[in-house]
């Protein structure tokens, strides 16, 4: 299980400062825009820096070559990457794939793959979503056939993040018996087809994954003794948390840059930031930004500590942070005025990311219903 260690708020703040300082040098608008226009969205130069500094292994136990800290530190990395819209496959590789192995990898899978994740050598992803974009098990489009020592996978998954650079993809599918299972698939196989699915958010790359009778050894399945449905839920939890952290980081950045612009921009002979009508909206934005930060922190603690109401905390964090991010990014565009509508200014990149985050891995309604079921019990059938 992912470990929970006691980390003081002070250490976390120090870590945040360090990461922000590094990304201030190594990432940022220019690099993101460079990656946007590049055929490959993943910035290998940035990835080298991230790997060398050990961020890829921050939450991986020391026995697998990681730093062995908690999910809280990992959350800080994801937030900071979200702040600068860093173009790299960190979340799919480290949070999803690494997290899945920690939750349910066999000892062999962990020993073989976790050190490679920790060192940054392995780029990987997960396919949890069917073609309709729904993330509940019923929406999956991959069929898994049990052939004894081997498994055969057929069908389509959509919206697979950074599949174009991933060496391995963890695929969620259903067996003939209707059970849910998660299987590691190598993307180098001829029977694996990856087709880009460009989204309005130009800073991220998603692909469709078609599996044409992909045959893998049985050992490629995640811990078969555990329930696949439970694993799938855990992965959605991890993804929701990562999305929440990304939203917190992005909202913080777009808020700060909007404030900065409003203090510099003069109209009617004074800074735009001095108008009370706008100041009050900024105070409200701050409430959303602060609320998002504690909401994501609650979700991180809940996942790591396995609280009884962990699912409530995680789903609430997903919709609250993504909706807050959207609100703040919308205000960002509006308060920048005309330049907020240009391609040159970054406001639109954050707005697009925020809208994507709302839709990713269960939209806000879906997560409200998920939280409601965990909090209030399932509704009676009509």
């Amino acid at each position: 299980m992912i470990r929970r260690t006691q980390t003081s708020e002070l250490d976390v703040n120090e870590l945040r400062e360090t990461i922000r300082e590094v990304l201030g040098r190594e990432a940022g608008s220019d690099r993101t825009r460079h990656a946007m226009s590049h055929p490959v969205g993943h910035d290998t130069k940035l990835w080298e820096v991230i790997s060398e500094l050990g961020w890829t292994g921050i939450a991986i136990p020391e026995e697998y070559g990681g730093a062995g800290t908690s999910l809280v530190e990992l959350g800080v990395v994801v937030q900071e990457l979200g702040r600068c819209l860093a173009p790299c496959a960190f979340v799919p590789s480290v949070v999803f794939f690494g997290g899945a192995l920690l939750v349910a990898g066999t000892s062999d899978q962990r020993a073989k793959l976790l050190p490679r994740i920790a060192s940054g050598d392995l780029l990987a992803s997960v396919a949890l979503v069917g073609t309709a974009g729904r993330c509940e098990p019923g929406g999956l489009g991959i069929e898994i056939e049990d052939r004894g020592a081997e498994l055969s996978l057929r069908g389509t998954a959509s919206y697979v993040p950074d599949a174009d650079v991933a060496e391995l993809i963890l695929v969620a599918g259903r067996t003939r018996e209707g059970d849910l299972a998660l299987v590691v698939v190598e993307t180098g196989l001829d029977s694996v087809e990856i087709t880009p699915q460009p989204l309005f958010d130009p800073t991220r790359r998603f692909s469709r994954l078609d599996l044409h009778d992909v045959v893998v050894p049985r050992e490629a399945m995640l811990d078969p003794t555990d329930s696949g449905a439970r694993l799938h839920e855990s992965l959605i939890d991890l993804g929701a948390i990562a999305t929440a952290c990304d939203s917190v980081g992005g909202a913080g950045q777009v808020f700060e840059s909007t404030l900065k612009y409003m203090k510099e921009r003069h109209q009617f002979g004074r800074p735009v930031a001095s108008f009370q009508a706008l100041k009050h909206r900024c105070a409200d934005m701050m409430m959303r930004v602060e609320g998002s930060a504690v909401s994501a922190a609650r979700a991180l603690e809940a996942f790591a500590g396995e609280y009884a109401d962990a699912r409530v905390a995680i789903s609430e964090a997903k919709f609250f942070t993504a909706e807050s991010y959207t609100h703040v990014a919308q205000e960002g565009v509006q308060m920048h005025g005309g330049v907020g509508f240009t391609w040159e200014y970054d406001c639109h990149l954050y707005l697009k990311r925020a809208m994507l985050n709302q839709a990713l891995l269960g939209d806000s309604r879906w997560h409200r219903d998920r939280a409601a079921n965990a909090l209030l019990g399932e509704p009676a059938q009509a």
Partner: protein
Amino acid sequence: MLAELEAHSEFRGEVRAWCKEHVPTNWMHRMSGASVEESLAFQREWLAVLREGDLAAPHWSAEWTGRDYSLLEQVVIAEEMARAGAPRLGVYFISLFHTYGTLVHSGTEEQRRRHLPAILDDGEIWCQGFSEPSAGSDLASLRTRAERQGDVYVVNGQKVWSTYAMHARYCLLLARTDPDAPKHRGISYFLLDLETRGVEIRPILDLTHRQEFCELFLTNVEIPAECLVGEENQGWRIANSTLSTERSLILLMPVEQLRVAFEMLVDLAHNVPGPGGKPAIQDVGVRRDLVDLHAEIANLRLLVNRMLSQLLHSGGDGPESSIIKLYYSEVLQKFTKYCTELGGLKAQELAPWLGAAPYVSGVWELDFLNSYTWTISAGTNEIQRNIISEHALGMPREPR
């Protein structure tokens, strides 16, 4: 923070056991429709019980209470009191928080010795004399005048919105001592004995048809010079800077109470019909609304704890207390309004006031109406937004 809270399970057990033994059962029934006098007597009794258990003022230092509590212990006490459904000491609100904060930070030793024990031991009630008819949001433009004449200050003027002044013995008073100085620099802070000649108190009927807040008319009222707090003309600074921690500690109980209140809302949703006649809790829209409110309450609680520990570490008069006040009051208003709406016509039936009740009492419409005491008093939420944008976000003031 959550982990640290868990570590206090032994202490929590003690507080819970105390509550089980001492929180009066069925007090809500007794206080339903209670007169002001009955409610007052009941709060006085409850304060004495709390005092006996060293729980009357967990945020006060051991010098006055015999026991120091860490912030985490204070949180635990607030949680347990809220869960146990303890009565609220509304009438001691100013005494326990504002008077204490002001005297500890800016009072003299003599002032502290005279007044602090009397609050806990004798239940002495304080009120606040800040606002005036022409000085609400623009408090610093207050006109009540205090003139030094020998050993006394002679005070003339009018105050308004002084909650429970008619029951109070003392008043925290702001008055102008230097009319020629810039408006923030000519105000002084006084401790006024309301039994002094020249003080007239008139209650005002509020929109819930109760008399809680009052007007004060001050005519040649003599305040002894030793009742000045801090230095002359430093009143504005004292009123603003020494109270932010106390203002936030005030919210520990109400915020915890919101979590209890959420359970009341769930009960309500089980018991009122939703669309199609099924219980509202089965309705997808209602369920989503409940999750929204739940998320806000959870965020608020974490925010309060985080900002309180920041305040306690750095002291300071940062914008934290404004953020917490704004967040709490808006969640409270949204929550009580939602409950009232969900309650339908049933919730429109006139119901008696509950004396000493928490801010969410279950008399939904009254709770909703009363939520305006949080969004308007102690600096309207619009003023809080000004403070946040100027002090936390560094946005320039509007030209005045």
